[in-house]
């Protein structure tokens, strides 16, 4: 029990409960279950990318081109649809584009051994640029109505389809990370890539696979967003990379790899999402919301550092 109480997941879960209680007091009649699920619409696109990003960061790699991949996937979907491709196939092409973008990132990172933050910084500009070249200042409008259901419709009465996708993905990613050999190897790679390499762990292959999955899910995120706003535009998802990394770190994933859980990331997603929702239904200006987000992140980063100073170094690693 004391292990649970000390865990990071418990800390942010407590925060989530506090957020709920504060929200209940501030706007009781607005804090209703339909509204709560409805509110997930504004952050699910980011949430689904937090899952592969968590795995990626645990393995010691980072991808900051995800928002650009989202935009590029959405734009290419729109361009294909405009060129007469059926919307189903256009969606598949959009997903494939995301996957390929991830593959390119992964190949450059693993084959050329360039630090991932540098590679994906360059690719962030590159992919975003492709979106702008294809559409410029324009947007593809008149996407079919049934495509719009993907991002905005509800599956079981009031639970948005998007949110269902997030839950399913969270379970899949959680099982992979915590219940499979592959998942265990991700931690090994993140803890010490060189040691892992010498003991025969296929470090590069693991990281490559994670990059590809991150690209694919970023593509899916872009498609959901395109569906929700009903038009394909190159300027969507601006700043999502920072939002996603914020959630992942807040969820207790260690920025230098080797530590973190999917549970923590899921709780952090919900917490940050509802902090934003609670603040915005009180009509608090967005600048203030940013300050709150930044404040939460810095607290999240400080707590482990400070508590480590007061504690004798723990032998076991968490989460593994």
């Amino acid at each position, binding site marked *: 029990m004391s292990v649970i109480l000390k865990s990071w*997941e418990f800390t942010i879960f407590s925060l989530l409960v506090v957020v709920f209680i504060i929200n209940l007091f501030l706007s*009781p009649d607005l804090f209703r279950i339909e509204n709560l699920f409805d509110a997930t619409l504004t952050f699910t696109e980011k949430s689904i990318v937090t899952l592969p990003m968590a795995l990626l960061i645990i393995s010691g790699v980072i991808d900051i081109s995800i928002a650009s991949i989202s935009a590029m996937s959405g734009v290419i979907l729109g361009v294909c649809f405009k060129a007469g491709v059926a919307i189903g196939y256009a969606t598949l092409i959009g997903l494939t584009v995301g996957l390929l973008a991830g593959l390119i990132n992964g190949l450059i990172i693993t084959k050329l051994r360039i630090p991932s933050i540098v590679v994906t910084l360059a690719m962030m500009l590159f992919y975003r640029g492709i979106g702008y070249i294809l559409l410029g200042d324009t947007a593809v409008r008149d996407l079919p109505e049934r495509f719009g259901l993907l991002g*905005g419709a509800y599956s079981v009465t009031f639970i948005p389809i998007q949110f269902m996708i997030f839950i399913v993905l969270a379970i899949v990613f959680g099982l992979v990370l915590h219940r499979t050999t592959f998942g265990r190897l991700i931690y090994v790679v993140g803890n010490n890539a060189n040691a892992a390499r010498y003991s025969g762990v296929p470090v590069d292959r693991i990281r490559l696979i994670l990059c590809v999955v991150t690209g694919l899910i970023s593509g899916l995120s872009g498609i959901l967003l395109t569906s929700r706003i009903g038009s394909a535009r190159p300027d969507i998802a601006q700043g999502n990379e920072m939002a996603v990394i914020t959630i992942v770190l807040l969820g207790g994933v260690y920025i230098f790899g080797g530590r973190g859980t999917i549970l923590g990331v899921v709780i952090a997603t919900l917490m940050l999402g509802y902090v934003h929702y609670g603040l915005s239904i009180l009509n608090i200006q967005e600048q203030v919301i940013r300050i709150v987000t930044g404040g939460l992140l810095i607290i999240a980063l400080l707590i482990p550092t400070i508590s480590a100073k007061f504690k004798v170094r723990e032998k076991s690693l968490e989460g593994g």
Partner: protein
Amino acid sequence: MRKFIALCAILLLVASVSLVFGGSAPKEEAEKAKGVGPFTLAWVPKGLGHPYFISCYEGAKEAAKEFGDKIFEVGPDDWSVEGQIRVIESLIDQKVDSIGIAANDKDALAPVCKKAMEAGIPVVAWDAAVDQSARVTFVNQASFEGIGRGLAAGMGEVIGYEGEIAVLSATPQAPNQRKWLSWVFEELKDQKYANVKLVDVVYGDDMTEKSYDKALGLIKAYPNLKGIIGLSAVACPAACAAVTDKGLSGQLKVVGFGIPSTMKDYVLEGTCQQFLLWNTMDLGYVAASIMHKCCTGDFTGKVGEKVTLGRPTMGEPDAEYEVMVGEDGDPFVLLGPPMKFDKSNIEKWAAIF
């Protein structure tokens, strides 16, 4: 596996907490009977902090005060489509009585505005429209004809209807630029401009530096140039800067669009004789008044419908507005002819925005 049981437990807990506390509230209770104020009006500009939108909100506040309504401003700080969607989602949940929006994109904002309309919240677009299916009406700040003809007429007036003129535009593709330009041409066909010769149209892509260079190019290429029409709020001050730097202030005259505070110095030193802009406070006042009338049910947005406001505006001294139909078939309310700024009123308006 324990983690996953914990995860499921947490999700269940979250759901049940919200059910117990929130779900018990009766659904329809919050819905107000239509037609009885005071109403809560939500004012959504394209973004926060720009003087243009601040002055629009001033006008909107005036209207809300007149009706005793509560009005508040909320918008995205990054001027994005997604930010506006997020804002409107939260306004729907809050069940405000009406939403007034200057849309960052006509189509991308349509789904969420439709959702608001379906939830019984009338949406009034102002400054920049959302698709007609997702709004009650659009308060259009100025017609293309009024602006185009107004700029050409102003140019004719300041150069004494004689000499060479040129146009500095933003981009050749932008629809508003094209339409304004075609009305400038139309106005110049009139007999009184027989001695006015339009020698060139150049494009500065709405970038200050490029527009400045293009203006310098015009000055070099046409030594007899008498006037430049700056067709955007970027082009006009850039043309003024070029003319001033070349020491031609007063000989080569500039008219165009502008924000009073950025144009003040050029107007006072005589580079820019006059420039146009709609009255932003009237724009806010008209839009917010219509929002209120949507709430009471006095306004439905049908073509030909008339609406009377609490005070006269610059465009409609009798305070009566009528819903018109645009070239593309969209019904809208027109604010009126654009406002002219010159030495006589620039200082007053520059202090405002």
